[in-house]
């Protein structure tokens, strides 16, 4: 089995994987970073969103081997030095989650939206940008509030 090496949440990691192993499988099964979830098979739900080299991608639709040398951040790596990321805080503060299953992908996507669209996000922009993330619990109302609040907090 071929070997793949990358940096995940600031640590150099490597593993021998079946060549068809998806990035999400490498994260969940080889590294046991189970915060990244799988909610569908068709790149629709966004439960598996992680950051690769600074951009959000769906880790269920990309092979682990194609990320040789990449820098990956998962939900487990978002908080720094024991301090929650402002977007994590915003989801908790605004009740932006219920069952929590879509939440890691939502938060990783939300951080990426802020990186791309800035810290002042209106409701329409947030709703449009969440196109690739499905939540079945919250009806999105509080997720939209959380993303707006998290975006503002990230400016501080």
């Amino acid at each position, binding site marked *: 089995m071929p070997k793949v090496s990358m940096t995940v949440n600031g640590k150099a990691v490597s593993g021998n994987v*079946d060549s*068809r192993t998806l990035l999400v499988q490498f994260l*969940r099964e080889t590294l*046991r*970073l*189970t*915060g*990244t*979830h*799988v*909610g*569908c*098979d*068709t790149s*629709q*739900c966004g*439960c598996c969103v992680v950051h690769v080299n600074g951009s959000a991608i769906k880790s269920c639709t990309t092979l682990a081997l194609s990320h040789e040398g990449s820098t990956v951040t*998962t*939900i*487990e790596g*978002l*908080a720094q030095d024991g301090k*929650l990321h402002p977007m*994590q805080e915003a*989801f*908790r*503060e605004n*009740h932006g*989650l*219920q*069952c*929590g*299953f*879509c*939440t*890691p992908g939502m*938060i990783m996507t939300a951080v990426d939206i802020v990186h791309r669209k800035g810290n002042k996000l209106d*409701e*329409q922009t*947030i*709703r*449009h940008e*969440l*196109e690739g*993330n*499905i*939540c*079945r*619990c*919250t*009806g*999105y*109302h*509080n*997720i*939209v509030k959380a993303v707006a609040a998290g975006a503002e907090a990230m400016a501080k």
Partner: protein
Amino acid sequence: MSATSSATGIGASVRRKEDLRFITGRGQYTDDVNRPGQGYAFFVRSPHAHANIRKIDSTAAAKMPGVLAILTGDDIAADKVGGLICGWMIHSKDGSPMKAGAHPALAQGKVRYVGDHVAVVIAESLAEARDAAEKVEVDYDVLPAVVDMNAATKKGAPVIHDVADNNTVYNWHLGDKAATDAAFAKAKHVTKLDIVNNRLVPNPMETRAAVGDYEPGTESFTLYTTSQNPHVARLVISAFIGVAPENKLRVIAPDVGGGFGSKIFIYAEEVVCVWAAKKVGRPVKWTADRTEAFLCDAHGRDHLTRAELAIDESGRITGLRVHTLANLGAYLSTFSSSVPTYLYAPLLSGQYDIPAIYAEVDGIYTNTAPVDAYRGAGRPEATYVVERLVEVAARETGVDPAKFRQKNFITKFPHQTPVIMAYDAGNYDASLQKALEMADYKNIGKRKAESERHGKLRGIGISAYIEACGIAPSAAVGSLGAGVGLWESAEVRVNPIGTVEILTGSHSHGQGHETTFAQLVSDRLGIPLDAVSIVHGDTDKVQMGMGTYGSRSGAVGMSAIVKALEKIEAKAKKVAGFCMEASDKDIEFKDGKFTVRGTDKSMDFGAVALQAYIAHKFNGQELEPGLKESAFWDPTNFTFPAGVHICEVEIDPETGITHIERWSAVDDFGNVINPMIVEGQVHGGIAQGIGQAMCENAVYDAKGQLVTASFMDYCMPRADDLPSYQVGMTQTPCPSNPLGIKGCGEAGAIAAPPALINAITDALGTENVPMPATPQAVWRLAQKSITRKAAQ
């Protein structure tokens, strides 16, 4: 209530305790559980909707790399593992019991829907299990399939189960037929509607999963599973399916990523995983992919209904009559039989004083996935019937729909409906008036005219719903055919230093019990929220429980906790009495302090807990050491949450796109523990209701292939399909439980579909709008509407 507890006690919007692990990726869902040496299961599923199995040849598959075992229906039968059960007996109107066909965990000679379980391959890795599954050769004798309910009951239709003539499970009825017919004979006006309640796929974001484990030394099994009610799973898998006795089977439902009803039921895959763990001698893990979830999770709704409403000259409703065909799919799922019967027809009185109601319901087998409870379960179907009928009746008789409702509201409580239910408390007009205000109902005419000037169509729709929750009094449901009682249990364990563990039979899969239940305990015992832990979802920790569904955790689960807390308080007073040399009758407990009445002698809760365990101040004959109590709560009535949702839409006739302009929800949930969490439940429920009314539809083709089996084909509501919601509340406390709670989990999903369809039909000027009202369907109707207006 102490100063410290008021910020975190009953009525406070406390931030959720469980959130930290979810926002940091430290939740532990079933697919996150890994057992040493585990094999991976992959199911060979039927590609046909209806077929006899001539032969299964797994010779080639068994030689594939990594394969540990390939098991079929023959193996499960040889081990005398029983089939899946339906736990609610329904009798037809002729008195005969429902016709329940066998439901084996792995098919025995026949498959009845696409996705039916034929065999399981267990291998060292999931990829190897999948590869090998492709080599399992199944020789099918394909039979004609039937998916349409009307076709299924016709003579000559394919026979799905030999026991069920005409594919009919039951012809059930409720109410007084003669009185209802008489009301219709005398009616001044009769409103008639043919209603399709579309089939839905629940789709919690976490798909179902199971890990079965077997410990040969103790001959005991452990099953990790995505369940809303692990104790019910243990009971069924032990007592009925017979994999292991209860004392040798531990069921753990860890963090569960949403349920919405679909994780109540006991499914084939979890049974197979736990049985196969012993057979293979390795832990066995299975996780559904999303297409398997579409194919095999129990679906929701799927009714065809003829509904009629009788109205007298004064505009009062005098009778309601329905005949419903309910699609139950290819097998009876765990509670499926009850959903279109006792969870449906008893709610057909809505919020209205209707003297005569008669409902006939035919439960039908088809070659489709089993249909069972989905958020609301029967009550959304009933509400859709009632609120569409009422809206159309108002329009047909030229009365304002709000006034028509108001005129017919029940105003005196308790109120006995003609269909079982005794409503205990409510103020329906208060919710209506508040909702009308929030919706700025009085100015809708101006807004409609404004839209028309811009070439748009605007409409407003009301839904005044009621539901029966807090399910349910055991004796009552027993008399209606339920195989179990629906009480709940609680155990309060006070530790020597005064921290508390609450063991509950309720199960949280998004509802936030770790917070709300802790708020109750913190409030009652006067201890900090962080000193309280909620333990659920493990049959080795919590002795027994009935789980979470039917908006029951607050009304039933928390009532059990209240009962146990009362016992704790009584025992703690005795301990405090011994310590302070006073009678327990002279001890007061307030704000976390035990005080000898009329003195300044007091002990705080932690000190009393410690004394209970060190037991130096009393001897064992006088008082048992320790501070731990348990209780079971069996409600005396259902609870009756009710409210009014008003939806306002603007339709672009050029594109058929319906934009929800405003959603005004007023709900009466009785007393509320955590308003933030309750509002979140309302938001999510409305979203699922809007999903049903505007987006979602499970479609089978004529051969029984599910053509909407992925998120690419089945329209899940996304953030930009939905509006923000205005949520308000009225409160009439529930008289039948100590906290006055009614329950809030299902309200939105029940209220929303008729509100939205009433708004769209108002905008389009036609009642013939199907669910889901997709842009294509709305566009077609909008073209007709414009042509009609032009002709006028």
